[in-house]
Each structure stands twice: as C-alpha cells, then as structure tokens.
C-alpha cells in the first residue's frame, strides 16, 4: 500500500497525482492502480508521468468510476500500486519529437526529462494543462488548442518520434510516419497505445493489439509499439 502525496486538479477533469514511495519505472511504462476494495473490479492502468526521489507521479483524466474515485483522493490517503509494467519508449539518440494529445501528454513528461533536447508538441481539444512544466525541458515547445497538433510537426526533421494521444491521432501519426519514410528520412515513429486492460500483465488478452505479425498485448509487448507494426481497425 502506498500513500498519496498530492492530487492536484489541473483542468476540467484532469488531475496530477503524486504517490509516495520507492517506485521505479522507465519512460512509457505504466502502473496498475486502485484506491478501493472490491468494486470497481479492475485496477486502472496509468502511465508514469514522472519518477523522482519522493515517489511516482501520474496524470489522469476522469472518464469513469475508477478515475472518479482517484479524483477524490487527498494527501495521506492509501492507494495500491502494482508495477511498473510494460515495455516503454526506447532509449534513443538523435533528434527527437515528443507529441502528446490531451491526457496523452502524461508519459511524455518523463520522456522530456530523459531526452532534454527534444522538441515537444502538445495538443488539446479545449483546455491546455501542464504545458509550462514542459517548457524548461523542451528544445522547442509547441502548444495547440483546438487544432490538430500533428499539423505542426515536420516528420522529416526527426530521427525518432514518440506519440501518445487518442487513436485517430495515433493513426494519423502512423500515416505521416509512412509518408516520411517514403520520402527518405525515415523517422522511427513510436506510438503509446491506451487500451482497456484487465490483468495488466499479459494473462487476460483483453488489451490485444492487432499487429502486422499477429496479435500482441498492449500491457506486456507495449504499450509502446513501432507505428509501422500496428494495424488499426475502425
């Protein structure tokens, strides 16, 4: 059992949760969290926003009963953590772009800390949040509210592109990556997928992802996949 340090509301339905303890993890990995007993049944997967000496941090968006309970947490409250799980973003060298959409910016903050010369692109449909925290870490920070952040990114300018956001955005990033590859520069595009999960450790196959080489698991093979591997279904 871990303890909540703080749980700050950043925007409408968006919270920044800090949890005390020695919790490690690599960029792009996630934890399974629960702050309740038997119900809701499932723990909730949240990607690592930041790891530091005090503990581990998460950003989450209230979308259902579980995250609603998270939103009610106050400092000192107990919370259960299991993890870190999953394969995160790779350690890379070269010119990197970090592209986040909405709550998808969550894992990219930890990436920006580890890859300090990256260009960071943050897109929001209505309200921006946490953008100023990225500013000192980014070589260049681009923020877009209401538009399509991908339109601001020249894929040809990068060696590696990390993307996390809603599925239509991931699909669009995949297409832009393919177009750039056809043009010659060929950036490696990595997508962090947000799938429903039950077990979080590869046993239940609820989070199955269609890939070119067959079904893979978002929880253990991902949540980060090379864009070219993923087959999106509408």
């Amino acid at each position, binding site marked *: 059992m871990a303890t909540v340090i703080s749980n700050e509301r950043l925007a409408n339905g968006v919270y920044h949760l800090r949890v005390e303890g020695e919790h490690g993890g690599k960029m792009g990995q996630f934890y399974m969290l629960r702050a309740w007993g038997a119900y809701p049944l499932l723990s909730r997967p949240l990607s690592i926003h930041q790891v530091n000496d005090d503990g581990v941090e998460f950003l989450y968006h209230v979308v259902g009963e579980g995250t609603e309970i998270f939103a009610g947490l106050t400092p000192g409250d107990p919370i259960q953590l299991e993890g870190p799980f999953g394969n995160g973003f790779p350690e890379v060298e070269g010119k990197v772009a970090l592209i986040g959409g909405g709550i998808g910016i969550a894992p990219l903050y930890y990436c920006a800390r580890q890859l300090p010369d990256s260009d960071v692109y943050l897109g929001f449909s209505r309200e921006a949040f946490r953008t100023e925290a990225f500013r000192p870490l980014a070589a260049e920070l681009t923020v877009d509210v209401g538009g399509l952040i991908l339109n601001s990114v020249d894929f040809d300018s990068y060696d590696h592109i990390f993307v996390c956001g809603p599925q239509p955005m991931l699909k669009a990033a995949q297409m832009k990556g393919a177009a750039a590859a056809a043009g010659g520069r060929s950036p490696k595009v990595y997508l962090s997928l947000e799938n429903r999960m*039950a077990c979080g*450790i590869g046993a239940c196959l609820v989070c199955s992802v269609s890939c070119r080489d067959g079904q893979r698991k978002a929880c253990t093979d991902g949540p980060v996949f090379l864009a070219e591997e993923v087959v999106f279904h509408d």
Partner: protein
Amino acid sequence: MISTSVNTTATIAGVHFKNPVVMASGTFGFGKEYGKLYDVGMLGGISGKGLTLQAKAGNQGIRVYETASGLLNSVGLENPGVEAFLSKELPYWEKLDTARIVNLGGNTLADYVLGAELIQRDANERALEGRRAVDMIELNISCPNVKEGGIAFGVKTPAAREVVRAVRAATSLPLAVKLSPNAEDIAEMAEMCEAEGADAVSLINTISGMKIDVRRRRSVFNNLYAGLSGPAIKPVALRMVHQVAHRVTIPVIGMGGITSATDIIEFIMAGATVVQVGTYNFMNMRAGSTLVEELHQFMVEESITSLDEIRGIV
C-alpha cells in the same frame, strides 16, 4: 504462514490437488505472468487459456466492460493454438508442482477431436520420456464469445453429447467438461457428461450478457453479447453447483465470482470438490496466494481439519 494442520487436498480422476484453489481458464494465461508475482506452484491447479486447434485472433473492439460487481468479456478465445501451447507453454508447466489442466475449445467437432488427439499424443510421448504432461483436459463447450463452436455445443444436451462422446473416445486423459449456465438444463447436461464417461464437470462458465452504449446507440461489443463473470454471478453459480452436485456422482469443479476463503467454503459446502478462481485475479494480482492463505486461516479458525468434513453438507 500456511498452516499444515489442515487438509485441503482433493483428488479428481487420480489427479492430486494440494488445495482446492485452481486458476480459471482465460484469466491466468498459462501462469507465467503471475509466476513473476508469486509462486504459482502453491496453487491447487491451473486451467490454462482456452485453446483451439488453430491459433485464434479473438474478437475486435472492446473486450471488457465492468458492470455492478461483474465483468463482461468478449475476448473471443484468442489463443496460440494447441500445438504452440504444447511446444512453447507446456515446458513452463513441467516445472510447476500443481495440477495442470488444458482447456480445449473448438469450432467444429473435428477441431475438438483433433485437439484432444494432439494433447493425448504429447502426453504419451512425455510418458515414454518420463516427463510430466498435462494432467487433465477441461473441455470447453460453453464459451459465449465465439460464433461457431463454444456455446453452440453447450446449450442443448444432444449437441453436447456428440462432442463429449467424441473427445472421450479420443483421449484417455482425465476429462472435465466445462458447462454453461446458458444450457437449457445444466443438471441434465451434467448427467449426460457422467454417462458419456467424463471424469468431472466444471461450472459455471460466464453468463451471456450485454451492455449498451446509449450515446452511440449500440452494444459496446462488436459481438453484441459478452460473458458475465465476477461476484455478480456467484449466487447463480453456487445454486447451479449445488443442483449439479446432487445429480451426479463425478466431482464438480465449482466457479463463479469467488473472491474470498468463505466463497470457497460455500462452493465446497454446495458440493464442489475444487473451485476455480477467475475474475478475482484482476482484482488482486496475488489472488491465488491470498486465497490459499485465507482458506487455511479460516479452516483453523473454524476447526475444520479437512475439506471432506464439509463437502456437500448443504
């Protein structure tokens, strides 16, 4: 610390269970994942992910949805296929000191038979080499999430009889048949299994259910319906186990919404020989070790020295 003063063992068709806690098919992979979190060899048994003759990709779209104390799933039997299981997963099971149950599904009667034959052949080869093989086949005629096979065989007794008979003829391994709560008459189904030479029946599989997304005006599942599991179904499961246990002489493997030692005791009192634990694995990643410890503790507290004392007493 687990007490050694109580006897939790059970035997089904010569297969030894050191305790009644068996992990249910579809919720435990092949054990490897949970093996990183605790010693899964301490479990009574493991029923592996449901297998079909050929690998299966499973269903598209949303695969799980929470309900009040329940879980709807529409995984659709994604699995690597029998042969891949035997070559890639069984070696891990070899090292485990627990009962190893392979859950076998199928699209057609021929699939079931060919799957059972492959498992039998593997067991024969292993026996010659002195290696541990699969201990039991759990025949899945009750998956509600696949269009062909699965529950299509598990609702009507005559159709189920054909599968049970054919698989019984194809293997000499201990055979349990996993029954569906959606069966027209589950007790009649169990009696048929006994008559056809099954060594046990396991019940219940998930209950066919539904969830509608009212904003999108459609079911959340591409397959329309999904299988309901978890604490919500426990009273139904318990009633069915009780009914069936009083109608057959073969052992009953009971399951449905078990999340505590007292839940296990209820199923044993209803007549189950061992139980399976499914959805609870998603609520508590160490469900197996928690339950085994709690069960011992409960038995000590209640002065139950052996589960045989209370089995079927209700």
